[in-house]
C-alpha cells in the first residue's frame, strides 16, 4: 500500500455504532441525540469496501408512456390524505399512477379558486398565482423606494413528486425554497377537498 499511513477518511469502514450507555436501576440519563441517524426500513449492513459509484447509464425507453393502457387512467381510488415528509413539512399523499393523479389534480385546481397560471407536466409543476401581502422592504429596489405595503401576486410551485407507491404534492416558492407552513396547509387542504368531491 502507499508509503503514507492509512487514510483516516477511510476509517469509517471500521466504525461501529456503540450501544447506548446502560444506566443502573433507579437513575436515568437525560439523552437527546444531536446527530440522529434516520432509521431505515431495511437494516443496512456496513459496506466492506468503498468504490466511487457511477450513475446508471441512460437507456432510451420512450415507449414506456405509450404502452400504458387506457383504462389505467380511469381514476381509481386516490384517497388523498395529509402527511409529513422526512423533513417535517406538510405534503398531500395520493395513491394511483402519476398520470392519473396529474389529471385529477389538474381538475381539482381548476375547480378550486386557486389561480393556475402555467403548468409543466414534464417537471411535475403547477404554477399557482397567490395573493400575498409583501411588507415594504422586501420589494424590488425601486419599488421599495416608495414605502407603503402592497398586495402583489407571487408565483408558487405546486410539485407532484413520485413516491414508491403513488405520488405526493408539496408547495415551494418560485425560488425553490419551501413555502411557509400555513400557506402550504391551506393550499393542500383546498385541493384535497376538491379531489374528494
Amino acid at each position, binding site marked *: 500500500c502507499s508509503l503514507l499511513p492509512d487514510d483516516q477518511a477511510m476509517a469509517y469502514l471500521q466504525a461501529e455504532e456503540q450501544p447506548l450507555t446502560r444506566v443502573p436501576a433507579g437513575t436515568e440519563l437525560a439523552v437527546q441525540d444531536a446527530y440522529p441517524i434516520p432509521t431505515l426500513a431495511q437494516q443496512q449492513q456496513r459496506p466492506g469496501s468503498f468504490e466511487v459509484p457511477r450513475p446508471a447509464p441512460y437507456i432510451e425507453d420512450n415507449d414506456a*408512456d*405509450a404502452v400504458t393502457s387506457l383504462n389505467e387512467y380511469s381514476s381509481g381510488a386516490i384517497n388523498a390524505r395529509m402527511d409529513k415528509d422526512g423533513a417535517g413539512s406538510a405534503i398531500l399523499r395520493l395513491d394511483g399512477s402519476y398520470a392519473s393523479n396529474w*389529471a385529477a389534480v*389538474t381538475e381539482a385546481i381548476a375547480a378550486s379558486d386557486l389561480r393556475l397560471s402555467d403548468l*409543466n407536466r414534464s417537471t411535475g409543476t403547477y404554477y399557482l398565482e397567490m395573493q400575498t401581502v409583501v411588507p415594504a422592504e422586501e420589494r*424590488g429596489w425601486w419599488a421599495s423606494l416608495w414605502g407603503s405595503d402592497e398586495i402583489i401576486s407571487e408565483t408558487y410551485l405546486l410539485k407532484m413528486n413520485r413516491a414508491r407507491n403513488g405520488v405526493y404534492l408539496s408547495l415551494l416558492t418560485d425560488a425553490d425554497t419551501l413555502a411557509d407552513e400555513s400557506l402550504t396547509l391551506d393550499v393542500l387542504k383546498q385541493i384535497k377537498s376538491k379531489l374528494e368531491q
Partner: protein
Amino acid sequence: ETFVVEDIRLEGLQRVSAGTVFEAFPVIVGEQVESTDLVSASRNLFRSGLFSDVQLYRDGNVLILQLVELPTITGIEISGNKAIQTEMLLDGLKQSGLAEGLVFKRSTLERISLELERQYVAQGRYDAHIETEVVALPRNRVSLNIEVEEGSVASIRHINVVGNEAFSDEELLKQFELQTSSFWSWYSSDDKYSREKLAGDLESLRSWYLDRGYIRFNIESTQVSVSPDKEGVYITINISEGDVYSVAEVKLAGNLVLDEDEFTRLYLLKNGDTFSRRKVTVSSDYMSKRLGNEGYTFAKVDGIPKINDEEKTVDLTFFVEPGKRTYVRSINFTGNGGTRDEVLRREMLQMEGGWASTDKIEAGKNRLNQLGFFKTVNVETPAVAGTDDQIDVNYSVEEQLSGSLNFNVGYAGGSGMILGASISQNNFMGSGNRMSLGVQKNDTVQSYNFSYLNPYYTIDGVSRGFNLFYRQTDYSSLSTVSDYQTNTLGGNVTFGYPISNRQRLSFSIGYQNTEMFEGTTVPAEIIDFLENEGDNFNEYTLGLNWRYSSLNRGLFPTAGTEHKVSADISVPGSDLTYFKMAYTANYYFPIATDWAVRFRTDLGYGDGFGDLQRLPFFKNFRSGGIGSVRGYTSNTLGPKGLPEYSVVSVVEQDADGNPLYELDELGRPVVDDSAPTVVYTTDEDGAAVAASNGSQYKPVYVTDSNGSVVTAPYYLEDERALGGNVLAEASMELIFPLPFVEDRSSLRSVVFFDAGNAFTSECYVPYDEEVPTLTQHPYCNEGIDLAEVRLSTGVGLTWITAIGPLTFTYSVPLNDKRGDRTEGFEFSLGQVF
C-alpha cells in the same frame, strides 16, 4: 349522434407523453359517447395548456385527435444590453420561471419584458425599452430575440436644503453620500439615486445638527421628483433648525453594580457643554463596555435627554441596566482547516464556564491575530437559547500562509545570488510550532541551519527551542565588508516564558566554535586581533531576552508598541569574553482607517571584558540595507578598517611628478603591486612627503603644523566596512493603503525616513615602528558622531507570497559621503522591513 368509441388514436404528438393526453381526455374506450361529451373532453384537453390546437375526427368508431403542441422556448438571445450583461438578465428571467425549456405562451412574452424592465429600473435606467421578437424554429421550437434599449441612467441634477441658516448648503451637502453629477461621478457614481442612500444622508444631516446642540432639529419633509424625460432626479429637503441647547445636569440612574466614579470618569459631556448626541452615545458605549469587562456582557446604558425649552438646556440621565452577569457556555473555532484547535484555544484568556468579560474576549481576538497564522479573525457572542445569562463565543478565522517553502534562487541586496533550499513553517503541520530547515549557498555565505521552537512547551506558554548551525562566510568576494573568512559551528537552547500576558522573558545557553582566516588586503585591526587572540575560538554564550508587545497583529501591525532588550555574554572560560546588548523598539499608531505611522529605533553596544579590551571585530554591529538604514548597501555603513600597505621610498620623480621607482636587476620596479602602495619622498628636513600613488586609495597622512606628513603607512579603505561596537538607528514610516488594490491583507506599502549608523566607542590605534609618530587613528572619532549619521528616504512594499515575504524598496540616500555605497532599488526575499 352517438357511437361507441372502440379506440383513440393520437396524431401530431411530440414532447407531451401520450399518457398525459389520455388522462386529460376523459373518454373511455367502449363507452357510449355523443358529440357534446367530445366537445367538453377536447376543451378539457385544451385547458391542460400544452396544445395550441386540438381537432377531433371520426374514422368509423375510432376517434382521431389531431394535436398541435405549443412550442417550447429553446433560445433566448438578448442584444443591445451594455449596462447589464446577458447572464445577469438571463438569471433574472430564470428566477421568475422564464427559462429555456418553458412552454411558450403569449403571456410568457409579456412576463419576459416586464421582468427585464424591472431589472433596468432597479439600476436607475427608468426609460429602458424592451422589444421581443419570436422566431419559429423547426421541430416546433421557438427562440426569442430580445432587443434592449437601455436608455440613460437618471442622475441627480439638484439637491436643495431649504430652511438652513446656521450652516450653508455646501457645508451640509458635503456630508451627503448622494451628490449632484460632477466630473468624478463616472467613477464614484455618487449621483445615482437610491432610497437607502437618501435615508442614510438624512440621518447624517440629523446627526450633524444633533451633534452641534440643535436638539429640536427636525426634517419637515423631503421631496424627490423625476424630470419628464426621466433623465434627472431632483431632491428638495425642508428642515427647521431650532436653537442650540447646552447641557445642564448629568445624572446616573439604574443599578450601577460598580461604584459611581467608574462611570463619571467616562463622561464626555459636563455641565455647560453644548449638547452633542455623538458624545452621549460614545459615553454610554464606554460605560456598557466597562460593565462588560465585569461580566455583564448584556449590559445596556442609554443616555436620555430631558429638554427644557425655556432655558434651551438639556438634563442628561444615563440609565444603567447591567442585565444578568453572563457566563461563557462554550468557545468554538471555525475556519481553522489546517491549525489544530488547541493552538487557538491556548491563546484564550477567557475560560469556558467562567464569567464573560468583553476585554478578555477581545484580547483573545488580538492574541489570535498576533500568532500571524490568520488573515482575518472575527468573534461573535450569541446568547444561548433558553437562558438570559449564558453566551457562546464563536471565533471564525481565515488562515493564511504562515511560512515559506522556498527552493529558491533568490537575490538579496547584501549577499548577491542565493542558491539553496529552506523550509520554514511558523505553524508546522498546524501544531503552532515553528520549524525551519535550511541550506543556503551564495558567493559570501554557505550555511546549514535547523531551528525548532515549541511556543507552548507547557500549557502556561513556557517555550523551548533548539538551534543548530554551521556557517562558512568569505567576505573576500564581497567588496563591501572587511576581507576575512570565518567558519562557525554551534547551537543553542532557548527557554522562554510569559511574565504577564504581554511580556515574555527568555534565556538561551549556547556553544559556538569559530575559525578565522585572513583575507588579502586585511585591515590592521584584524591583523592585530589575530596576532593577539589566535584564529580559533570557543565561546560559551548566555543570552537573556525580554520582550513587551502590545501590537494588535502579528503580521503588519497597525497599533501598539513593542520593546525588545537582548543581552548576550560570552562567559569567562570562553576564548573571547565579551558582551553585546541590543534594544529595539517599534511604536505604531493608527491615524485613519488603513493609515498608520511607525517609529522604530535600534540601539546596540558591545565591549570586551577580562583580557579582551575591544569587542571582537566579527561581532561588530554593521548598518545599512533593508531592516536598517535603507538606501545604503547592506552592511557597508560603520567605521572602516585600516589595512596596511607596503611602503616604498623613491628618490626621483619624472617631469610631471609621477614617481620613478627603483629598478631591480631585471629592470622591473621594486614594488609589490598586489597591495596598493604609497610612495614617499622626504622633504628637505627629513619628514616624509607623500607623492601621488596612482591607485585610488586615499593615503592616510596628516600634515602637522609645518605641513610635513605625520602618519604614513595606512590608507583608509573606502569600501570595506569593519563595523563598530555601537549602533544607533532610527526610522519613521508612514503606512498607507496601496490605491487600486482590493485585498490588502497581504500587502504593506510605506513611505520611510531612515537615519543611523554604526560607530565605535574606542578608536583603534595602529602601531608601526616605521612611523613612530602615528599616535591616533586619523579618521575615527569616538562615540556617536552626528556628522557620520546617514539619512535616507524612499518607498517600500512588502508582499506575503506563497514562497515567503517579498520586499521591494526604492530609496534615496540624502547625505551619502564619498565612498559610501548606495542602492537605489533593493529587493529581498524572506525579510519583512
